[in-house]
């Protein structure tokens, strides 16, 4: 009997492990990971324009739990990453988390919902996995291409590092604006944190 229990445990251990330790966010393939996020996002995009704040909030929550925040936060600093001091890290990561999820959700919330298709996946090695997708709309003949750059964490989980919408990589764009700001502020990260705070306040 004990042997049976042991065999059962060994057979189902990977499934139990993935569901209990890694939670619902664990996916075997980049395609299934992107597919599940896209499904959740498209469901949120179905929410009517009158409830836009609710729509943005839901999309924001989807991104908060799926973005590789630490990696994005360091990437967007460009060469000024070295200026980030230990005592600034906690505040910077926290504020960036809010800022990035806010930007991604506000920008994506402007799209209507549609039909989602995975076009291709390519593994670029250390620089991540790119999943190319397409969203087709019922009332518009021009579909929108969305590319996802994913990274695989040490625990096997996928996280979103960057999203390209209408030909523009968002983290890349943030990197340009952040490094431009820092170059005009002697690389002072505190000034950047203040600027992001004021931007978040403006967005309410």
């Amino acid at each position: 009997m004990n042997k049976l229990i042991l065999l059962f445990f060994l057979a189902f251990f990977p499934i139990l492990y993935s569901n209990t330790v890694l939670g619902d966010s664990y996916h075997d393939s980049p395609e299934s990971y992107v597919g599940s996020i896209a499904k959740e996002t498209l469901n949120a995009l179905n929410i009517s324009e009158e409830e836009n704040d609710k729509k943005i909030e839901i999309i924001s929550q989807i991104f908060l739990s799926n973005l590789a925040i630490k990696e994005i936060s360091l990437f967007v600093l460009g060469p000024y990453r070295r200026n980030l001091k230990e005592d600034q890290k906690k505040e910077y990561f926290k504020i960036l988390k809010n800022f990035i999820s806010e930007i991604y959700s506000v920008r994506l919330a402007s799209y209507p919902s549609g039909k989602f298709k995975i076009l291709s996946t390519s593994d670029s090695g250390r620089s991540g996995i790119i999943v190319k997708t397409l969203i087709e709309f019922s009332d518009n003949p021009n579909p929108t291409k969305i590319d996802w750059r994913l990274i695989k964490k040490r625990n096997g989980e996928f996280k979103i590092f960057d999203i390209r919408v209408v030909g523009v990589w968002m983290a890349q764009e943030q990197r340009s604006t952040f490094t431009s700001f820092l170059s005009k502020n002697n690389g002072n990260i505190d000034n950047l944190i203040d600027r992001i705070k004021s931007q978040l306040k403006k967005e309410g």
Partner: protein
Amino acid sequence: MNKVIYIFLLLLSTTIYSYANSEINDPYEKSNRIIHNFNDKVDVLILRPVSVGYSILPNPLEEGISNALQNVSEPINFTNFVFQGEIGKAFKSISRFLINSTIGLFGLIDVAEKINLKKNNTDFGFTLRSWGIKEGPYLVVPFFGPRSTRHLTGSIIDMVTNPLNYLLKDEDSAIRISPSLLYAVSARSGNMETIDNLRETSIDYYTSLKSIYIQNRFSEEINEGNDYMLDDFFQSLDEEYINE
């Protein structure tokens, strides 16, 4: 005239985009920002309100106008694809123009798309690139917005050689410039929320527009440069994790 050519050649002698470190060559940033602010005011005060009005038009009518404007640009695409040695694409462009101008009711309906002749736009800026001309610094042009020097040179040549100019040459100036104005309004209307969101959410709208322009215009080079840059980034991050 020689001076003008000389200045353009001088401007084209440096590249806009250094692939290795993905920095953008913007030596005229100060004056560019002034023109950007002017363009932004024109957008907020004139172009955006007109585009909001335009977007009230029924979808099929908006789509018809957009198709007709695309159709008018096909002869320019054809000429440039020929200059670039892209004969297959040139053939597609001219086929699209002939089919849409006739069966597609003067371009209002994109019949060619339905028979798998998909639109593929190019311009003289890309032709200059295929001839090995360097990109030149980043510029912001009044009313036209972001342009590399090579792109600006190409736009001027495309404007001068546009067959529509010859067709409308005896008309009033208001009629002559109307296709360009309609194109601006149609494009702004089609990107209404994208531009509005960008203006609202960016910590530096000027740099965001520059990044978006560069990413769209040089997507192939950017992708390649991104991979190299990200390789370096993740490698250094790994080393930091190890050292932590």
